[in-house]
């Protein structure tokens, strides 16, 4: 490789700065969108993992009730007596004023040290934590929200997810009204040998493996997959820009390449220089893209985090952290993309004869052959797509159908246009019309790529638009059904849930008091009677069932829209006991 030749090769970009800008912007944008989306996904997943490790101690095995309910404290005592090194946890949501916090009640003495997210190891810490009114250990942000809402002292610890508080198990029990019933039991890693198996002691418990994917991660998987797919689509459209830009630069330098060769630059040296050039641009614009992607991701993350919180109750921090693997992945994808979109041009340079005269016919032939080949590949892709529609199942198959459909259509477009133009040319009698078809046909090779990119971009746009709007409609409909109600009713048991449902949907004889009395086998004279669960007073109510919420005894339920309550409410619209 010669520096003189390399310098001359690169001088093209100084001579055509706009082309250089197109190339760099193309790669940079493609990389930015792709790596921005990846960054958001990575950040969200990492935070699920972190939250699971901190809140659910999921690096250890856990015992949960097989029926999904609570664990009695007797079961726990039995396990301890049998010699098992286990630690109880009571958790649940509690409201401090307007602030809902997930309480994680732990027993600092028995909790295995590897699962202790917060340190309460020193004696004075311990006294503060378990003694007196107890202590809430929360993140700084949660502490700010908790200000003036509780008399329990608050301590701030780093690395805690937002909206969660560690608290002594006794205090949690009291705040959550659990009467000693446990949510789960953490099993320490080191156990004495020869213990009686847990199944024998407590058959009602199931063992959850350590390191199991957190629930939120599974819930949000398809959301992240969608993001990835859009990021990829954007990347592919960006690659079309890159392909055009490199194609143009190679086409314009065809003469220069020939001159190089005729002045004694070997084909190997020329190809090597072009490869170095391609890689250099890929890395440069990839780096720009990753930086851009960082800003894209930081701009989008708060929105995505809000969506994730709203939809799945998943807590994702609004700030992005820089990860080296993310940088490397961004550069790698830029490199792969650029090399892929330059490969064909490089191949043509490799096959190009030194003398220009030999070129033309070969070029035309290759063009026709290329069109036929392109049409065949397109047809195969469309067939695959059709086949996948019939036999495929699941989200990935859906993506594959879309990908093959889009690529197939894009590939078939130029050959189809060419065929139409040949037909038009043959059918036209007038010279001018004949010329029109012939000329348009000649433009086709240069334009076909842009046409394909346009087709892809348009369908991606329509697709994303439709998808987003249908997603939004579904979501809004869902919100209308579950969240936008005037009144939220929380039921404590199945019976209450039934009466509540009957109350809102049923005719007058479905009124709760009626049901209540019917259950007792009594038929009341007055069907409009309603009994307040809290103060146990019965009252006669007006005909409007909504008024039933206001018992006139001051036990009115909160009217605040509460997504979590509604989310946990399941299909019945009323929340079962938990």
């Amino acid at each position, binding site marked *: 490789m010669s520096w003189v030749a390399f310098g001359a090769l690169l001088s093209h970009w100084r001579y055509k700065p706009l082309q250089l800008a197109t190339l760099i912007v193309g790669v940079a944008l493609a990389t930015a969108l792709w790596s921005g989306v990846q960054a958001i996904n990575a950040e969200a997943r990492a935070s699920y993992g972190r939250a699971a490790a901190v809140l659910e101690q999921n690096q250890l095995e856990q015992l949960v009730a097989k029926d999904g309910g609570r664990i009695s404290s007797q079961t726990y005592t039995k396990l301890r007596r049998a010699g098992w090194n286990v630690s109880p946890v009571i958790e649940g949501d509690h409201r401090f004023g307007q602030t809902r916090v997930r309480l994680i009640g732990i027993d600092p003495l028995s909790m295995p040290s590897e699962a202790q997210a917060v340190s309460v190891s020193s004696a004075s810490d311990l006294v503060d934590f378990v003694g007196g009114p107890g202590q809430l250990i929360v993140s700084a942000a949660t502490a700010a929200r908790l200000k003036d809402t509780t008399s329990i002292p608050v301590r701030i610890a780093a690395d805690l997810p937002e909206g969660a508080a560690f608290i002594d198990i006794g205090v949690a029990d009291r705040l959550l009204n659990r009467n000693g019933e446990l949510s789960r039991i953490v099993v320490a890693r080191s156990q004495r040998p020869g213990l009686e198996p847990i199944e024998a002691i407590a058959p009602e418990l199931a063992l959850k493996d350590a390191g199991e994917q957190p629930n939120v991660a599974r819930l949000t998987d398809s959301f992240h997959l969608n993001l990835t797919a859009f990021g990829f689509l954007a990347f592919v459209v960006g690659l079309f820009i890159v392909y055009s830009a490199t194609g143009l630069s190679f086409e314009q330098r065809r003469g*220069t390449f020939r001159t190089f060769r*005729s*002045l004694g630059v*070997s*084909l*190997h040296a020329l190809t090597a220089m072009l490869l170095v050039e391609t890689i250099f641009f890929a890395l440069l614009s990839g780096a720009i893209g990753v930086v851009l992607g960082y800003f894209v991701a930081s701009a989008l993350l708060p929105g995505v985090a809000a969506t994730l919180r709203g939809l799945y109750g998943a807590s994702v921090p609004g700030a992005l952290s820089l990860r080296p693997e993310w940088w490397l992945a961004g550069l790698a994808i830029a490199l792969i993309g650029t090399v892929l979109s330059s490969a064909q041009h490089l191949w043509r340079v490799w096959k190009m004869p*030194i*003398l220009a005269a030999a070129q033309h016919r070969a070029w035309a032939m290759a063009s026709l052959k290329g069109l036929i080949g392109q049409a065949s590949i397109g047809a195969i892709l469309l067939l695959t797509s059709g086949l996948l529609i019939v036999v495929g199942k699941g989200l990935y198959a859906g993506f594959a159908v879309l990908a093959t459909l889009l690529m197939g259509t894009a590939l078939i477009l130029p050959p189809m246009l060419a065929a139409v133009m040949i037909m038009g040319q043959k059918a036209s009698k007038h010279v001018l019309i004949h010329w029109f078809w012939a000329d348009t046909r000649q433009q086709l090779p240069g334009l076909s790529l842009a046409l394909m990119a346009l087709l892809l971009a348009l369908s991606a746009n329509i697709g994303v638009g439709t998808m987003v709007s249908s997603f939004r409609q579904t979501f809004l409909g869902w919100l209308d059904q579950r969240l936008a109600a005037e009144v939220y009713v929380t039921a404590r048991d199945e019976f209450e849930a039934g009466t509540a449902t009957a109350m809102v949907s049923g005719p007058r004889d479905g009124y709760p008091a009626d049901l209540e009395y019917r259950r007792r086998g009594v038929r009341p004279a007055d069907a409009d009677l309603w009994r307040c669960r809290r103060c146990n007073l019965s009252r006669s109510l007006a005909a409007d069932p909504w008024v039933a919420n206001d018992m006139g005894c001051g036990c009115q339920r909160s009217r605040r829209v509460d997504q979590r309550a509604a989310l946990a409410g399941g299909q019945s619209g009323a929340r079962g006991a938990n």
Partner: protein
Amino acid sequence: MILSLSDIKKSYQTAEGRTPVLGGVSFVLARGESLALTGESGSGKSTVLHLAGGLDKPDSGTILVNGRDITKLDDVGRADFRRTDVGVIFQQFNLIPSLDVRANVSFHAKLARRFDPLWEGELVEALGIDQLLRRYPEQLSGGQQQRVAIGRTLAARPPLVLADEPTGNLDERTADTVLDIMLRLTKSAGIALLLVTHSRRLADRLDRRITLTSGKIAA
């Protein structure tokens, strides 16, 4: 002997099948000598030049440059040969559009590691392009581009220069001047010159003249 072609045959693949262009061409060129190659348009003059310049391979026959058979070289060997042993002045100039005149002129010399600023300065002045050094090829007229192309080849001082109608785009007077300069410079540097032209008048000013007809050198 700097160049010797013996019994060179060459045909091209066309739509009508193989069309023979050269049917056994033989001639020699001595060191420092200047030789005119004339012939009708389409007689194969450019083909001969391309073969002698190592840009293409003959179907049969041998081409010796400096005693070395260049038809036996591989791709890399031929590239080396083109870089150091020969200079081709093309009919279409083949300048590099993204380099200015100065960089274009010194390009081949630098590739061949024979760059000499003094010699280049002399050349540029003699060719009358010293005022154009900062311009780009597309800002030059055909005649100016041709002179830059000549300058590029002579600056590299190869022992053999092959010129394909280098004065084809020039008016008669300028053509004469340019040929004068080429002859003077090649003579002073001891460079052998094979010059393709269809102008008898120009051909007569070179040391010797051969003519290509029906794929052969006419006596």
